[in-house]
C-alpha cells in the first residue's frame, strides 16, 4: 500500500478539528441571522408606517395636528351672516379690526348659530384694553384715560363700537387691523 495514497493521520485530525471549530461558527452565524430577522420583524411592527416619509419623523403627525378643532371662526364666516354690521364697520375706524378681536372665539356660534349665542362684551372693560392711555403705546394710537374720559360710563353711550368715531369731517385713517 502506497504511503501517499491516503491522507496522513495528522491531516485527518486537522480536518476533523476544523469541522468541529467551524460548527461553532455556523451555529453563531445562524443565531445572528435569526436575531436579525427578529430585529426586522420587531422594527417593522414598532416603527410607524409613515416614519421617514418626509424626514426623521412620523409624517402622519402633520395630519393629526392639522385636524385639531378651530375655535376662532374667522371674520369671513361672521360677515357671511352679519353683513349689516360688516357694512357699518367697513365705513368706520374699526374697519379692519376683526370681529373676534372684540367678541372672542366664536366658531361654535358659526357652526350652530341657533343654540350657541355669543355674550355681548362689556365695553367699559373691552374698549379700555386697547384705548387706555399709557406712555408705552405708539403716540398715534387713540388713547384716553377712561375715568377722566367717561367717568366709568359704558363707552357705547356715546360711541358705536362698530364705527366708534364721530362724523366731524376729519378724515382720520382707519385702524390698520388684522384683516388683509
Amino acid at each position, binding site marked *: 500500500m502506497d504511503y501517499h495514497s491516503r491522507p496522513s493521520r495528522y491531516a485527518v485530525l486537522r480536518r476533523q478539528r476544523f469541522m468541529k471549530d467551524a460548527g461553532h461558527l455556523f451555529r453563531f452565524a445562524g443565531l445572528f441571522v435569526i436575531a436579525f430577522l427578529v430585529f426586522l420583524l420587531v422594527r417593522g411592527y414598532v416603527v410607524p408606517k409613515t416614519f421617514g416619509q418626509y424626514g426623521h419623523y412620523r409624517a402622519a403627525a402633520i395630519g393629526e395636528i392639522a385636524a385639531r378643532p378651530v375655535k376662532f371662526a374667522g371674520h369671513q364666516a361672521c360677515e357671511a351672516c352679519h353683513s349689516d354690521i360688516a357694512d357699518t364697520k367697513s365705513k368706520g375706524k374699526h374697519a379692519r379690526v376683526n370681529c373676534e378681536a372684540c367678541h372672542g372665539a366664536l366658531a361654535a356660534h358659526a357652526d350652530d348659530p341657533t343654540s350657541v349665542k355669543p355674550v355681548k362684551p362689556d365695553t367699559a372693560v373691552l374698549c379700555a384694553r386697547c384705548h387706555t392711555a399709557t406712555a408705552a403705546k*405708539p403716540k398715534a394710537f387713540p388713547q384716553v384715560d377712561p375715568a377722566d374720559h367717561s367717568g366709568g360710563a359704558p363707552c357705547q353711550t356715546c360711541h358705536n363700537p362698530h364705527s366708534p368715531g364721530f362724523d366731524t369731517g376729519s378724515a382720520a385713517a382707519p385702524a390698520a387691523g388684522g384683516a388683509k
Partner: protein
Amino acid sequence: MNISRRHLLILLPAAAVAWKYVEAGTPEASPNYRMSDHWWGMLIDIPKCIGCGNCVRACQTENDVPDGFFRTWVERYHVDDIDMTNPEVISPDGGKEGFPVAKEDEGKYFFVPKLCNHCVDSPCTQVCPVGATFISPDGVVLVDRKYCLGCAYCVQACPYGCRYLHPEKRVADKCTLCYHRITKGLTTACCEACPTGARQLADLKNPNDPIHEFLRTHSVQILKPQMATGAKVYYNDLDGSVR
C-alpha cells in the same frame, strides 16, 4: 399586461384622484392644501403693537394652552436714553391682561410680541433624540405628541424660550403657527385677534403675499441672527436692545 380600453377608461380617473391625494402629502389632511406650495412665517410690526394682549388670550383659547404657559407672549421694553444695553423688560402673565400704565418717563417704550420663530435650521429639532419634533415640508416646526418622550432637550435648546413641557400631557408643546387653521385657509388665532395688524401671517412661497413688498421696503430683522437659526418671524423696526 392586457388592459382593454374599457378598463383603461375606468382606471385613469381613479389614478388621477389617487395622485391628487399623493401630491397633497397627507391623505388625512385637507385635499386642497398642498404642503409643497407654502412656506410659512410671520411678520411682527413693532410700531403697531399696543400691548393689549389679545394675541395671548386668543392663542390660549384656540390651542388650550394651560395657565402660566405661553405659545406666544408680549414683552414691554423700557429703554433708558443713557444705557440702551440694559432695558427693563416686563411681561406680566405673558401680557395676557395688558400692561400697567406707564407714566411719561425718560427713554422709550415699545412692545415685542414673541412666539416660535419656526426656524429653518432649528436647534430644537436637531436635539430631539426620537424624531418627535420636526419642520414640516411647509416650514412649520411641530411636535408629534404621540412620539414625544418629554425629555425636554428641545425646551433647553430653543434660544428663544418658545417651548414648554405640557403639565398634563407630559410632552413638549409650542406654537404650531395654528397649523390646523392655516391648512384650512384661515389665518392664525393671534393674527385674527390682533386689532392693529401688528401680526401678519406670511406665506413666503406665495408670490402674491404682501410680505414680499413689505420685506423689500422696510428695515426688517429677526431675533438672535447670530445664532444662525434661520428664523422666519420677521420684526419690523426692531430695537437693538431686544434680546
